């Protein structure tokens, strides 16, 4: 390290001096500040890229069925019948009782499987772990901890039933009495 520059040959010595004069010497302090600017810029760019990576995983458009839709006129649904027409396409059972019409979620409240409507047993039965629900959605057997959820049902201006799955009503929170949980028709 030190011994390398200890004995400059006469031919090298004059060549070094003009170099030092022409190039402006970078002082230690300014070099460090430029270095820190560089590192901060690099860290910011890297952090920005990691933020992009996180946002990249959440697309703006989902190719999933819409969360709110009309399902027809109230008279299309018979009293006392569990309507399974929208089970596969929309993920709801439409039930009309003497009290009114409600939309039950087809997601089991235990671990999220889809129960089956067993018309002879008059109950919803989940194939995964055996949870059972009444026609109202109240759980009565198996590991399900709470009743099926209901979705918001309203009438459109032309008298059709409109279901909004982004609003849900949970029995155990006393929400089934709220407006929208059941459609009085």
């Amino acid at each position, binding site marked *: 390290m030190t011994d390398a520059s200890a004995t400059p040959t006469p031919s090298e010595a004059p060549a070094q001096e003009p170099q030092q004069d022409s190039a402006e010497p970078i002082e230690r302090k300014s070099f460090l500040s430029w270095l820190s600017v560089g590192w901060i810029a690099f860290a910011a760019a890297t952090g920005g890229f990691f933020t992009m990576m996180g946002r990249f*995983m*959440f*697309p703006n458009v*989902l*190719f*999933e069925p819409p969360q709110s839709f009309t399902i027809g006129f109230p008279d299309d649904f018979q009293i006392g019948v569990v309507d399974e027409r929208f089970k596969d396409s929309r993920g709801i059972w439409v039930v009309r009782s003497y009290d009114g019409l409600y939309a039950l979620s087809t997601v089991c409240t235990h*671990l*999220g*499987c889809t129960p089956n409507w067993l018309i002879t047993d008059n109950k919803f039965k989940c194939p*995964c772990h055996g949870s059972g629900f009444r026609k109202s959605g109240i759980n009565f057997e198996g590991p399900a901890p709470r009743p099926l959820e209901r979705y918001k049902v309203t009438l459109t201006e032309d008298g059709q039933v409109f279901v909004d799955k982004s609003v849900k009503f949970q029995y155990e929170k006393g929400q089934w009495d709220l407006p929208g949980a059941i459609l009085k028709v």
Partner: protein
Amino acid sequence: MADNERKSLGSRITGSMIWTSIFRTPFPTTRSERLKSILNNVFLHLHPAKLSRHAVKLKYTWCMGGLSFYLFIVLTISGILLMFYYRPTVEYAYTDIVDLSEQVPMGIMREIHRWTAHMMVITVLLHMFRVFMTGSYKPPREFNWVVGVLLLTLTLFLSFTGYLLPWDQLAIWAITVGTNMARATPFLGHEGPGAALLAIGDINLVTMSSDVRFALLGGRFVGESALLRFYVLHCVALPFIIMIMMSVHFWRIRRDGNISGPL
């Protein structure tokens, strides 16, 4: 005469430019040459340069770590072969799996992959059990224990992501149930503790469309994008991470006092 010719042929090969450029050291005959040949090989240098007689006893190590690595290699090779036929779309995934066992020659390849995956989970767990019972997690090996725990979770996550790919009823519902647990992740899952705290006014930041479960599924339920994400995780992302972690694991064995055995 014939012996001489054979010798000269052998030495002609080992003395050739190709041979010496690949193997920098001549065939090791002494102890130091053997050490050097291990250190000069990219594959062998991760492994300890020398082992004590005690350390390689089967009844002590059970060879479960080595078997786990062997099974990982089998899984990598059979998995790459499966990728030539399997298409991760809702339309084709299930029928491609059926074709793999019924139409493709050597239809057992998918079963090899599946059974090897089951076996790897077992061997990794047994390896962990052995390390625990022999006290091999103690300092200076405590960091390698942590790396090992990460490798266990990665193994389980590889199993989990592979489970969806057949796209049959069992797969779809198992992943539905499994990913529903991610709803309860603290802060990151929309039904988890602390998620309600992450809100600006009335607007929740962690919702069904922005939580960790959504990032995993690419949607609000198990569908087309979930299949694709699990496929990419299973075939590229997780093997990439586990290979890095395995390299660290093997290297640390060498650095932290050689394989097994008391220090």
